[in-house]
């Protein structure tokens, strides 16, 4: 998906980093070492108060490490003046943190302004960024933050973080304050953006589902930012390093694994198919000649349009009187989508379409259960 563009991000290395707040004996972050590869989304996930935000904030020195070294690219972050360092690192926070007295244009253009870009270049960049995050510049640029919805503000927050095209983006629960549907849209958009931009993104959240969805890698953090496990979402879901991680991954782990696999990764089963021009008699004989009591109805270009069951066909004069509405999934859909479709359909399977929407076969609940079982045994053996 993202393999085709070179990363514009740079590697970040945390080298035995600790943070002790003045007047506190316990370190907030205790000896953390982490290698964040260029162009990947690394999600810090952990319970609240575990120090994940502090760990992230040390990267742009909003929190000064007490000891240890932080490398961004090949530069030592502690050797760069904090304000300059922060201008080269995008920063997006919960509830966007937009300045209410500035227009959207002014908010997004802040960092380029601090970097002394000239006005016309800033304006062009703001237009480009608003387009990028899906806000029509002519419509939104001169509005004030309070005139935007929470989701739109969050988009502006991301645009502001990207303004000076920084190689690194720090995101502190940026989608924590919006409703679940908007959050899901924003997550999809972030993934789409990242597909184009390939920044190095450090993303903090306490929502493991979000971590699985967004992360190329996930760092599961415990108290004092101790790294309990640092691996791909697949591996963490399949084999949590210890009970704490397992507890955090939660009982939804199997379901989440389905969100990581696509329909094309599993074997499809076939079900009888008929064309919508066929007579009721023809369809009855096709179903009778199969092991099933229903059939997928295709149009003349082999695309599934509806389905029909034997019981309804029995008294129907023509096929069109008996067909029922059909939702399909594509080979690109996740198995989680497929599961949803299966649960919604009365024929207990999800009809799958391939390239140009042609009928490919069906996914059944049994296929999904087999897949989960296989993943578990693979994880157990590795």
């Amino acid at each position, binding site marked *: 998906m993202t393999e085709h563009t070179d990363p514009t991000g740079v590697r970040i290395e945390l080298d035995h980093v600790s943070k002790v707040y003045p007047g506190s004996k316990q370190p907030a972050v205790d000896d953390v070492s982490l290698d964040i590869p260029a162009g990947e989304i690394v999600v810090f996930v952990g319970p609240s108060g575990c120090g994940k935000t502090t760990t992230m904030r040390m990267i742009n020195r909003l929190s000064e490490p007490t000891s240890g070294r932080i490398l961004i690219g090949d530069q030592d972050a502690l050797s760069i003046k904090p304000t300059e360092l922060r201008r080269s690192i995008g920063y997006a926070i919960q509830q966007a943190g937009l300045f*209410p*007295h500035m227009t959207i244009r002014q908010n997004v253009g802040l960092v380029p302004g601090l970097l002394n870009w000239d006005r016309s270049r800033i304006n062009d960049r703001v237009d480009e960024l608003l387009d990028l995050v899906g806000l029509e510049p002519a419509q939104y640029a001169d509005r004030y933050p309070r005139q935007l919805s929470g989701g739109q503000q969050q988009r502006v927050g991301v645009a502001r973080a990207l303004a000076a095209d920084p190689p690194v983006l720090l995101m502190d629960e940026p989608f924590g304050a919006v409703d679940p549907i908007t959050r899901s849209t924003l997550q999809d958009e972030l993934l789409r953006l990242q597909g184009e931009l390939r920044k190095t993104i450090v993303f903090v959240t306490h929502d493991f589902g979000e971590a699985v969805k967004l992360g190329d890698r996930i760092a599961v953090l415990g108290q004092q930012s101790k790294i309990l496990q640092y691996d791909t979402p697949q591996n963490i879901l399949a084999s949590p390093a210890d009970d704490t991680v397992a507890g955090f991954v939660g009982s939804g782990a199997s379901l989440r694994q389905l969100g990581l696999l696509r329909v094309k990764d599993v074997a499809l089963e076939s079900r009888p198919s008929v064309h919508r021009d066929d007579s009721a008699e023809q369809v009855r004989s096709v179903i009778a000649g199969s092991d099933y009591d229903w059939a997928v109805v295709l149009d003349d270009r082999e695309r599934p349009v509806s389905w029909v069951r034997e019981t309804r066909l029995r008294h129907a004069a023509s096929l069109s009187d008996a067909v029922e509405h059909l939702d399909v999934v594509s080979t690109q859909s996740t198995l989680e989508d497929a599961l949803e479709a299966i649960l919604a359909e009365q024929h207990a399977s999800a009809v799958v379409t391939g390239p140009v929407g042609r009928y490919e076969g069906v996914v059944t609940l049994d296929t999904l259960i087999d897949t989960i079982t296989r993943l578990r045994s693979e994880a157990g053996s590795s």
Partner: protein
Amino acid sequence: MTSNNSLWSALWTYVSTHYPQLLFDSYQHVSAVVQSVVIATVIGVVIGVLTYRNALAANLATTTSSVILTVPAFALLGLLIPLFGLGVIPSVTALVLYSLLPIIRNTIVGLNAVDPALTDAARGIGMSRFTTLTRVELRLVWPAILSAMRLSTQMSMGVLAIAAYVKGPGLGNLIFAGLARVGSPTALPMALTGTLLVVILALVLDVVLVLIGRLTTSKGIR
């Protein structure tokens, strides 16, 4: 009715014959108040900015300025004579001291009420402490500072009238002179004209400040 009529006509006669003097005194009065409030705003905002992050210092600043405000105007002006003598300087000093409390207090309360997420965002995108203060914090606190300025202006308009006692500028001289010659036919018109002008000018200044607020406050926070 008749006495009312005669009062109005006496007032009118007084105003029309002393027109240039009244205009001059009004100008002096407004000018002194505006300058005092501007000076007090600069000092008050600086004190507020320097103290708001430290609860003790902030308390000290507000308490000191509220103690000043409780000193009666006459007493304060009298106390300033040994320091500054008579005339414009002690008058303006008194006005500045009185104006400080609302401005310091609103600045401190306002700065502390700025959403920490906003100052964090400002730092996070690479604004210096000074830039954060001037481009974010003070912009957000400006409406609160402005309403303190309105309060200070209203208060100063009245206090300056008393400053005639230390030979200060403005309409107070008219009121004092009128009160000093009670019994003479011009006494009442003089004192009344001075008082009315103070009230009218105070209202005019308030309207001007409201307009300034309209023009200088971002639409995003109005």
